């Protein structure tokens, strides 16, 4: 809804909490740091094929995959939006969050090598772990911005969209809840968040919650 409001001509500016050029600069910084590239999901043939395959397997509808999910493969981040351009479902702050989330997947790729990609595809428990770790960046950024942590349970339930089992979701919820305990005490756990906060503290300190050091 917020993304839709931000995208309105003229009045959309009223709803901008972060400026499009700031979002763009932030993505540029993360890309430079992690040596990644960004590709529009709809323009990528490989994403069209993945979307088709997921649809055929009954995992997710083609349209939903292409419209609602950002995907990272190796060092390529496929976005369903143009960076810095708000649209329905993708307001500007959510573009910042997803940037950090996806770059945590790049950290996983660097840390684990090929076994990250293989286990992500083949092992639902592993996929839940990788996603819980990446969603921890969402949680860390939420704390930086608002001084509170979102519901770990609700965040973990999003893993159902990734083909994870209820028991995987339970573990992810506990993992995120324990991470939230640390984050509320000032912990920065994910590397991508650590890198992102350096930029955000320097360039958009006005967005940081009061009292968050």
């Amino acid at each position, binding site marked *: 809804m917020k993304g839709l409001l931000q995208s309105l001509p003229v009045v959309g500016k009223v709803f901008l909490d972060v400026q499009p050029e700031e979002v763009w600069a932030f993505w540029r910084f993360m890309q430079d740091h992690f040596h990644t590239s960004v590709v529009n999901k709809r323009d990528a043939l490989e994403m069209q094929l993945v979307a088709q395959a997921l649809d055929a397997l009954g995992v997710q509808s083609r349209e939903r995959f292409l419209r609602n999910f950002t995907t990272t493969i190796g060092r390529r981040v496929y976005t369903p939006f143009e960076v810095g351009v708000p649209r329905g479902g993708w307001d500007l702050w959510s573009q910042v969050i997803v940037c950090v989330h996806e770059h945590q997947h790049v950290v996983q790729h660097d840390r*684990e090598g*090929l*076994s990250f990609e*293989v*286990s992500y595809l*083949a*092992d*639902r*428990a*592993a996929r*839940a*772990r990788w996603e819980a770790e990446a969603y921890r960046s969402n949680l860390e950024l939420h704390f930086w911005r608002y001084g509170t*942590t979102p*519901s*770990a*349970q609700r965040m973990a339930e999003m893993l159902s969209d990734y083909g994870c*089992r209820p*028991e*995987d979701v*339970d*573990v992810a*919820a*506990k*993992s995120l*809840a*324990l*991470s*939230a*305990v*640390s984050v509320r*005490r*000032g*912990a*920065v*756990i994910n*590397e991508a968040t*650590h890198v992102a906060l350096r930029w955000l503290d320097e360039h958009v300190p006005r967005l940081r919650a009061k009292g968050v050091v």
Partner: protein
Amino acid sequence: MKSCAVASVFAACLFAHCRPTDRCLRGATRCSHNVAEICDADGSYHELADCDLVSEQSGAPFVCAFVDETTEDGRVTGHTCVPADEAGADEGDDR
């Protein structure tokens, strides 16, 4: 043929990120040195957070410790990284 089978198992193990079997209860947590670990749905422990790394990134010392808190998600108990000056002496498995 046999060596091929062994190689296949080894490769499968490598790609599946095999580790020694240490069956645990789903959601159990523990501290292993200064790393908080959680038991996944398939019954093996995996890293939740490396508190040494957290210390580096947070600019303050963190240690792995047991916590017991009530949050909007309900009661949260288990091992995670907490500031060193808040840590109790509690360690071991949480089941």
